[in-house]
């Protein structure tokens, strides 16, 4: 028997089993996808580690998939009948009927820790936006009790506004959209960012004439690059004049990230938003940035991103202009980051330039760029210095 386990790399967010792609008794090949896990950010496939027969499924649809938990067993001797027979074998019990006689809910299958939540705990967590998996359970086998949740609520610094919602399950209308994990995660991040980080936005304007020329020249040489690649690269370079923009607020200091890891907000239509991260942009060439972005964006839209690719950024860019917005002041998406760059729609505008000592009206590709900062981390001085440098790099691209 070969065991199939939940991959270890999960970075704290919760995953659930979304769907089994193979059923007990099915023949499976090595690396054939067996099951889909869904986190708040990505959908992840777990493949069969070996060829054989899927003998046993231990985590059903909607079960929580903790890293390392046993998902399934693969029988490698290839006989479906044998696999089924093994499944039917009853568990040995020291006292006949003892398990039936014990009062109360059946113990959690598999491991000793009780991770299931009571109705009361579930509701309290929903009402107060608490992630029960982060609480230390004081109940039997580590179960999170309602008292544990109440303690967490009492010790939270955020004061809740208004009455708690109704005690009974809400009725959905046909046109209502029930929250999925991504919507809840976005809501949680946004609300916390606004509540905890004092936001200020500065607005500059950037002339993309030089970029447009460079982009066209590169395309002529067969290297297709997006504007985003230039913006990412320019943002990384601008960090030199205000390193704290690449930092984050900690209780006792401003922590400056050693590498420049830039997340790029990528819309998934009705499905929400993910932020894949280009790691260590400072050490990548423009072409490498472009290639990384293409790959991440494509896989983001297919829902195939790894957890590690949507976490760990030190700075974020919201390219809101691609869907038509001229000017926006985005919220700092990733908690703790010092700033977020917003880039508006690139369009031809009339600008006044001095040509040969005389003012002239010219037509240039322009975009508004905003830097929204956490005012705890940086002030207007660094903000404007950073934006000035960023615009300078864009306008003088060679």
């Amino acid at each position: 028997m070969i065991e199939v386990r939940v991959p270890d790399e999960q970075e704290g967010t919760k995953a659930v089993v979304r769907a089994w792609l193979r059923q007990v008794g099915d023949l499976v090949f090595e690396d054939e996808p067996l099951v889909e896990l869904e986190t708040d950010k990505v959908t992840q496939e777990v493949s069969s580690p070996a060829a054989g027969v899927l003998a046993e499924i231990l985590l059903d649809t909607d079960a929580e998939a903790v890293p390392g938990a046993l998902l399934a067993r693969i029988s490698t001797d290839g006989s479906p009948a044998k696999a089924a027979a093994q499944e039917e074998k009853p568990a040995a019990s020291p006292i006949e009927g003892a398990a039936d006689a014990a009062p109360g809910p059946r113990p959690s299958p598999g491991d000793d820790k009780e991770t299931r939540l009571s109705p009361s705990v579930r509701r309290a967590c929903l009402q107060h936006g608490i992630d029960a998996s982060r609480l230390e359970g004081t109940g039997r086998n580590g179960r999170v009790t309602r008292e544990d949740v109440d303690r967490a609520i009492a010790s939270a610094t955020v004061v809740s506004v208004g009455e708690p919602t109704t005690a009974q399950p809400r009725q959905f209308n046909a046109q209502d959209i029930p929250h999925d994990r991504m919507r809840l995660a976005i809501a949680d991040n946004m609300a916390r960012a606004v509540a905890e980080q004092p936001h200020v936005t500065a607005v500059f304007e950037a002339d993309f004439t030089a970029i447009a020329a460079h982009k066209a020249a590169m395309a002529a040489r067969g290297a297709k690059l997006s504007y985003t690649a230039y913006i990412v690269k320019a943002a990384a370079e601008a960090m030199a004049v205000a390193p704290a923009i690449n930092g984050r607020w900690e209780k006792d200091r401003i922590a400056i990230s050693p590498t420049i890891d830039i997340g790029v907000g990528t819309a998934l239509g009705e499905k929400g938003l993910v932020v894949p991260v280009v790691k260590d942009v400072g050490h990548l060439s423009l072409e490498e940035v472009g290639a990384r972005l293409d790959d991440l964006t494509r896989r983001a839209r297919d829902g195939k991103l790894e957890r590690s690719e949507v976490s760990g950024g030190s700075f974020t860019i919201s390219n809101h202009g691609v869907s038509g917005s001229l000017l926006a002041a985005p919220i700092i998406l990733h908690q703790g980051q010092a700033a977020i760059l917003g880039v508006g729609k690139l369009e031809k505008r009339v600008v006044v330039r001095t040509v040969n000592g005389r003012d002239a009206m010219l037509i240039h590709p322009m975009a508004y760029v905003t830097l929204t900062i956490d005012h705890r981390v940086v002030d207007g001085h660094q903000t404007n210095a950073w934006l000035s440098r960023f615009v300078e790099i864009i306008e003088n691209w060679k």
Partner: protein
Amino acid sequence: MASNVFYEGEMQQVGGLWNSGYEPPPLTDEPTPAGQRINMVTAIRKVLDQELESNPRVLVFGEDVGPKGGVHAVTLGLQEKFGKERVFDTSLNEEGIVGRAVGMALSGLMPVPEIQFRKYAEPATEQIHDCGTMRWRTHNRFAAPMVLRVPGGFFKCGDPWHSMTNEVEFVHNPGWKVAVPSNAEDAVGLLRGSLRGNDPVLFFEHRAMLDDSWARRPWPGDAYVLDFGRAKKTREGDKITIVTWGAMVPRCEAAAESVSADVIDLRTLQPWDKDMVLDSVRRTRRCLIVHEDLRTGGFGAEIAAVVADEAFLDLDAPVARVTMPDIPSPHHPKLMEWALPSPESIRAEIERLMGF
């Protein structure tokens, strides 16, 4: 379809006190306890005495209730005082006892038949059932209000006949109200209200509580009436709700010693005080039901189902029961105590739920 199971304010055309010019003495729902504590036997006898005195339509009868005064001495001295016409022995025929009570009730009297022990009510099953459904099946034309007194439950030792409780059997007879008092004060209030009421009442007198020291209470007043469906918290707390009645109340109190628990004595099962139980469970988030009756299909199963349904989102532990197992009551006191919920077994379940 759902109306006229019980009296709803519109008087039936035939049957009952209230159709024959009955004018009740004044009553109050506030007890005014005064004087020495009296036991439940004395309290019940005193109410019967007063109502026989003030209401000539009241009749008390059953096996050995006359000169002997009943095997539990509840009716002691009543025949002597009120005469053989109003307090009298019957033949050993429960079907006849309840059947004649139905006839008396239809004629405007208030019969108080006694079934000597709980199990002896079974031969009267059909009469009891048909009495209960009368108002409904005649669309409120006929009704036969009465107070059927039934001693039962364990007392010192057990046995499959005298000691059974099986209150649910009566809850399952539509039209009957069911009282299960645990103490003298509640017995007074419920019995007096029943004797002045307009519905058949099954009045369950727990044998172990009739002379139990815990169940003794000061006389709650000559006008005290306790409405059905009003439970009482005998202890109050925040961590667990314990729902019980009858002889299990003092055991639950003992088990909940040093625990922050709401102990709720239901006092009546039909109707039962669902609101008090649900309000309490929504606060404590835990519910334990303790009863003497057998586990499967006992009234605790009904309470558990209602709590699981209506307080589901508030529960932080399973809804649990401590009951007799599904066996007849064993005779030997030690065996009987093994089968009954004890303060220890209740306590163990409280701890399981609190530590869940």
